[in-house]
């Protein structure tokens, strides 16, 4: 694997780190299996593509993508909390709808974003090679995000969110409005995914409505890789582990692409990912069974 390929993988891993942290928030903290991200990721990309090609500030584009993602999360939460639609189904409905929404946002299925001002471009003047600058800037962004999120989860509000996900009855008995926590958590989770999409469009050079397919699976794979490597209860480390899991996942993909490695080919990728995610879903169950057995 060449240095450019390696840093390219790190770069994508960091971008999907936003997704991984969002997925962690939904799946692990809120216990809400959320497929909305398959739609909020390309929505973030679409919003960034439209605004950046219209000459808007790329940071503003990211902010708008976050709002767009948050709105998606709120719609899913609304369907679930207000109408009692099963969480998984509610998120599938939002995801399906977003395919059409994303087409509307861009007015076409694919939009190019290259040779535009992005959040990365100002840093190209630092004197480092481009392929190092990108992961460097992204790692700062993702680190700040993880710090803020860890601090949020350690707050009274964040603690209530964790309780709402872990034990709804107990949370209610302690005055936590579980519905409101689901709204907030889903909004944050999908806002992060939207930012991931916006950064993807800026770094990959295009927004495509099909780019959301399998986002949830990649996010989950990152979460489980991170959890396997870092067994911790420290929030900051747990969140950082998701990002590291995402980077490792992308590096593994890159190894598979670099041919001859472990007999893997790009075409085996979906299988490998599916196995990882199956583990993600099975491991906690096995673990809790062990606890009960004790």
């Amino acid at each position, binding site marked *: 694997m060449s240095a450019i390929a390696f840093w390219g993988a790190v770069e994508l891993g960091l971008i999907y780190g936003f997704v991984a942290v969002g997925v962690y928030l939904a799946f692990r903290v809120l216990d809400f299996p959320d497929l909305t991200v398959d739609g909020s990721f390309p929505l973030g990309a679409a919003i960034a593509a439209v605004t950046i090609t219209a000459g808007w500030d790329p940071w503003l584009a990211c902010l708008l993508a976050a709002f767009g993602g948050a709105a998606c999360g709120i719609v899913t939460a609304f369907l679930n909390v207000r109408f009692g639609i099963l969480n998984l189904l509610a998120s599938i409905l939002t995801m399906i709808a977003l395919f059409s929404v994303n087409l509307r946002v861009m007015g076409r299925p694919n939009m190019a974003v290259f040779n535009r001002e992005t959040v990365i471009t100002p840093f190209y003047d630092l004197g480092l090679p481009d392929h190092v600058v990108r992961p460097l800037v992204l790692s700062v962004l993702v680190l700040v995000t993880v710090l803020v999120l860890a601090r949020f989860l350690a707050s009274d509000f964040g603690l209530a969110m964790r309780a709402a996900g872990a034990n709804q009855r107990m*949370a209610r*008995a*302690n*005055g936590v409005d579980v519905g409101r926590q689901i709204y907030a958590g889903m909004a944050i989770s999908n806002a992060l995914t939207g930012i991931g999409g916006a950064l993807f469009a800026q770094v990959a050079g295009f927004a495509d409505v099909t780019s959301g397919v399998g986002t949830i699976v990649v996010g989950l794979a990152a979460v489980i890789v991170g959890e396997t490597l870092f067994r911790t209860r420290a929030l900051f480390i747990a969140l950082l582990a998701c990002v590291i899991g995402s980077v490792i996942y992308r590096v593994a993909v890159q190894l598979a692409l670099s041919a001859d490695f472990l007999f893997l080919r790009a075409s085996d990728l979906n299988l490998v990912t599916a196995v990882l995610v199956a583990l993600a879903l099975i491991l906690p169950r096995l673990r809790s069974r062990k606890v009960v057995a004790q």
Partner: protein
Amino acid sequence: MIIVEDLHVTFNPGSPLERRAVRGVGLTLGEGEFATVIGSNGAGKSTLLAAIAGDVIPQKGHIRIGERDVTREAPAKRAARVARVFQDPLAGSCADLSIEENLALAAMRGSRRGFGLALRAERRKLLRERVAELGLGLEGRMGDRMGLLSGGQRQALALVMATLAGAEVLLLDEHTAALDPGMAEFVAELTQRLVTAHRLTTLMVTHSMRQALDLGTRTIMLHEGRIVLDISGEKRRSMTVDGLVDMFRRVRGGEELDDDALRIG
């Protein structure tokens, strides 16, 4: 103070599964009054508690806590004034959160939860002191996962949690039933101590006749959704466990007692 007026709760109304769990209960508990509630399975004890807590919305009747009518208020909203401890030690706390996180969560019951650190230094100190008062040695394990503790330890902490945020009403739903005898006794004593110290208006459902007479100041018996016995003061003091069992038998129309439904001791 709790005032319950002509309360009716029916599950699955109009369906073949219809069950009239509470059929016209009226009850007034003065401030700081501690009543124990007994009755066979299906007598409506838990439903009565659920209605006061807000988990169940009654078809008819009113529930007031203090001056406020809370009949239709959401459970999270009335939690500011109503604290609860459940029968299942797993239900009352979060296994994946640490002891102090669970306590911190309870400490904010009824307050607006902001973005301040949940485990700030002065709060940690306070929580630690409250846990130390239990005498269980848990103050040295504040960072441990709740899930690592025994059922009794969790129930003891659940009682501490219930008293952290200054509730007016405490609802206990057979909170000692799942514990071994030694721990059950400890939790029962702790209950009496905390209720007295915090002047909590308390309703405690129990299956133990002994507990029903030993704890609190008033004993209520429910049968088929109605109050069939309500004793306090001298009458209660002179009541024995045998006498209570006898009464229990009589209200059930002379049926033999079901051992599973009623434990004496």
